[in-house]
């Protein structure tokens, strides 16, 4: 059984004259331990796909099956619990709570799940240490660089040991060096810590870190490509593919 499966997944925004078909009957699967990137032009439905898979939004038609559970059938309380326990989110603009420290931001999912503050804080410190931020635990987001903030966000996404990590343009707000660092970290998330990742990106260089790329256009899947991350030049190959499409 796949970790994630979408069946005829469709999302329509607006009504009447302002109706927009963001996703058009998309079927895809993500296996456990797989790193999947989603690419496509602006407005093709990449982020919409991510939000539906992550239970942040409800589909107009179709379903999302995560670990055998149909997310569309869950009420808000159970869906919230799924997000807390089984999914980690990494956003383009980091989305850290500005008034909390790095450690407090990372421990949020556990605290919201009812864990004791002390236990959550210790686990947060462990993850921050793994990601090279042991000295930044008590700093607030405005005291960290972009790359550091994104690493805090990655730690937050991983602290509850979710099966699936969703990353929406995780390097979009970073310079190329920081972006490579973050992409490399995401690769470790899959290889070392055994999570699955579904990542939206427009950057072929970052997409090249994935095992597979799905290409969307006008809300539909138009192509898929398997990659060999060990192979040099995969980024160029992805770029050519994007330009061809």
């Amino acid at each position, binding site marked *: 059984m796949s970790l994630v499966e979408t069946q005829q997944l469709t999302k329509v925004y607006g009504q009447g004259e*302002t109706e927009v078909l963001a996703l058009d009957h998309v079927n895809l699967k993500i296996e456990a331990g797989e790193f999947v990137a989603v690419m496509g032009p602006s407005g093709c439905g990449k982020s919409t796909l991510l*939000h539906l898979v*992550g239970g*942040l*939004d*409800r589909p107009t038609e179709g379903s999302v099956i995560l670990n055998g559970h149909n997310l569309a059938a869950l009420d*808000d*309380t159970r869906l*919230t*619990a799924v*997000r*807390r*326990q089984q999914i980690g*989110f990494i*956003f383009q*603009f980091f*989305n*850290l*709570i*500005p*008034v*909390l420290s790095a450690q*407090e931001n990372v421990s*949020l*999912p556990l*605290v*919201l*799940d009812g864990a004791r*503050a002390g236990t959550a804080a210790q686990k947060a410190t462990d993850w921050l240490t793994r990601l090279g931020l042991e000295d930044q635990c008590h700093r607030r987001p405005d005291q960290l660089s972009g790359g550091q903030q994104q690493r805090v966000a990655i730690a*937050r996404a991983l602290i*509850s040991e979710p099966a699936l990590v969703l990353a929406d343009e995780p390097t979009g707000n970073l310079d190329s060096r920081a972006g490579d660092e973050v992409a490399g970290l995401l690769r470790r998330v899959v290889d070392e810590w055994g999570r699955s990742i579904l990542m939206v990106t427009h950057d072929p260089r970052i997409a090249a870190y994935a095992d597979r790329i799905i290409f969307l256009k006008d809300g539909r899947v138009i192509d898929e490509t398997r990659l060999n991350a060990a192979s040099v030049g995969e980024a160029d190959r992805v770029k050519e593919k994007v330009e061809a499409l």
Partner: protein
Amino acid sequence: MSVAWKLAWRYLSGHKLRTTLTTLSIVLGVMIIFGLNSMIPAMERIVARQMMAAVSEVELSVRSVSGSPFDSQSLAVVQSAKGVQSATGILSQLVAIPEGLVRPAVDEYQVVKTVIVIGVDPDTVTAVRAFSISSGRFLESGDTTAVVLPVSLSQKLDLQPGDVWTLPSANGTVDLTVVGIFKPSMPALGTEEIYVPLAQVQSMLNLPDQISVVEAVLDANADKAAVNSAIQSELGSTFTLIAPDGDSEFSSAVQVGQAAFLLFGILSLAMGGFVIFNTFRTVVAERRRDIGLLRAVGASRRTIVLAILTETLLQGLMGSALGLLLGYLFALVLMMIVAPLAQKFLYMDMGAPIITLGNFLVALGLGLGITVLAGLIPALSASKTPPIEALRLESVGQVARKVRTRAIIGFVMIALAVIALITGSFNLAALGAVLFLAGVILAAPVLVRPLAETFGRLLNIFFAREGHLAQRNLARQPERAAVTALAMLIGLSIVVALAGVLSSTFGGFLSYLDRSLGADYLVMPTSLMLGGGNMGAAPGLAAELSQVEGVAGVTTLRLAYGKVDGTDLQVIGIDPQTYPVIAGLEFSRGEPAEAYAALDQERAIIVNGIFAATTGVQIDDLVTIMTPSGEQQYRIVGVGLDYLNAKLTTGYISQANLERDFLTTTDVLLMANAVDGADKSTVGARLTNLISAYPAFTLLESDTFYQAQVNIFKAALAMMYVMMAAMALPALIAMMNTLAINVIERTREIGVLRAVGSTRKQIRRMILAESLLLALFGTGLGILAGVWLSYVLVGAMNFSGFVMQFNFPWGGVLAGLAVGLIFGVLAATLPARQAARLDIIHALRFE
């Protein structure tokens, strides 16, 4: 929950200006409620202490249910009752000392202008009350003009045994000789008590053979309940063995004051609630990404609601705590200012504010409650937003639709309100006022743009470039602008409405004054509160006045107290023949000629508007009045009022009935007219000469008195305008809050303006223009609503028996305009400075 507290505290401390302004709005309301109501228990305590039994030996007190003095024959009933060891009859009254008789005090701040004169039988009182004599002796059988003073009073006035003290009397004055000084068991908090032989006090007060209370001690093994029961049964229902309430007129005034203070405070808090609501709506919009993130990582809706409510609760706690502290200080300062006036006009020493648990809990509860309630809607709204919606901007289409629907409903309500007003029906007009306010509240966001453009044209004369930007800024956030303007609207509508009521009341009362105190000469007692310790005069004075050359006629008012269905009733005795000629009542129901004639012929009563409104009585209804001589039925023959007694439940009966049923023949106010063509000043001089023997009274010509009352009203109006401006303070805070939020939200835009060449002065002017637009918006609607409300309130007062014409509140409108514009300028001060000082680079990078 710890997440909620942590987030709440961090967010509050991260926006200090906004937190301060929001908290201030709660501080003001709590301060008013707690502070003003801390004064009430102090005033009540003074009154209660006056009425307490002097010593604990007294085990039984008998008074008339009506509260008036009664025949001393009842004493014999108590003395002969089984189980009663000793009983004594006492007649006591608060006596105001007129200026001419006030004795210089050792300390100029302790001048004595009032005493409680207690008439006792020296032969029996010492068996019931203990007196600790420190100098001289107590009263003895055979004493006539002796007096015994408490040590504190003797020290204040430097009176020792053998000294003479002159006090007012119904027969002019009486010289009392100090025979002893005693040490009271309880220190007097207000007016001090002196003891005089009973017969002398009965003469001083013109209450022959009357007493106000019987006090008794019981046998050692007596069954108190059985004794009480036997005495009650013997005396009948005219008497009560329970102490009466304190000074009813003062207690009524205190209760009215308490209700007014509470209302004032609640209105301030309600406006504070607007500020909280506005702030948290903005906060929720600002933090949509944070809220979306929290939902995305697994926060439940409940957690979001709790987080925001925790923040409002923290604000409420801070505001309430500070409000309670400032409220006590406010009361302390206010009582220090009011104390001399209270001593002069109410004859009471105010003391310090008293904190009661009830007042503390009410103020705290209201402060916290309104804050949390105001934050509830934004909190619930935030929790209902799906995580994905919170991660992007709300679509303009959706906002516009919501606002449009509410606006349509609002306009319909406004249209219905206008129709209701046009019908001319008072009830519909009252409903219309409520509909108008509600309609404006709903339609306000849609009105922002057109009104901003309308007022903007005026503003652009002074703020050419900045005014256009200001209009655009307001139109961009119409709901926030509307809520801010509504706080101004409510504050100012109350200002204008109260001004309309006051000026109409002013006009109404002056017409009562003309009618009821329009005689050529007024022989006035010391206090305008007829029962306020005035000595009164025996009927002889009126007779003497009528014999003065040049006097055409004399009429008098007499005063007693009764009860109707347990409610106090002030009973004024008038002469139905002379009173309508020389003075008269303002009738709202009944035929005056018939009513006065009925007073002369039967047990008939004219009641005032308050009595009629609270009891719902009609002409020809019968009311049962509890009098010192038992229950008596009176027929209602009219509803009318006079200037002095408009605010207490009052009935007017003939002086003959007053004497028969209430045993009173003492005149408390006398009025006289001059013969046509007589030289008024000459007649006045003769009258002045006559009443010089009665220092408890002062002669005033009606013009002089009229002018004095007009001056008092004007002073009261001026004070009311100041208070009303204070009520609009929360509106000022609301505007500052909104402008501060606007500045923060537009940091990047302000950075761009500065980068492309706007000067700091232009930025300040832009904020000022925005503030003035908001002020004009709120002021315009507020004045409109206020005039409407004042019309409705005056109508309501007419309905409750205060007949008066509606006076358009020009003063209130001008005051409202002035307050609105001044606040518009003041509110912009801090936010404009903040905006002008923004660092350009920092502002351009602001997210």
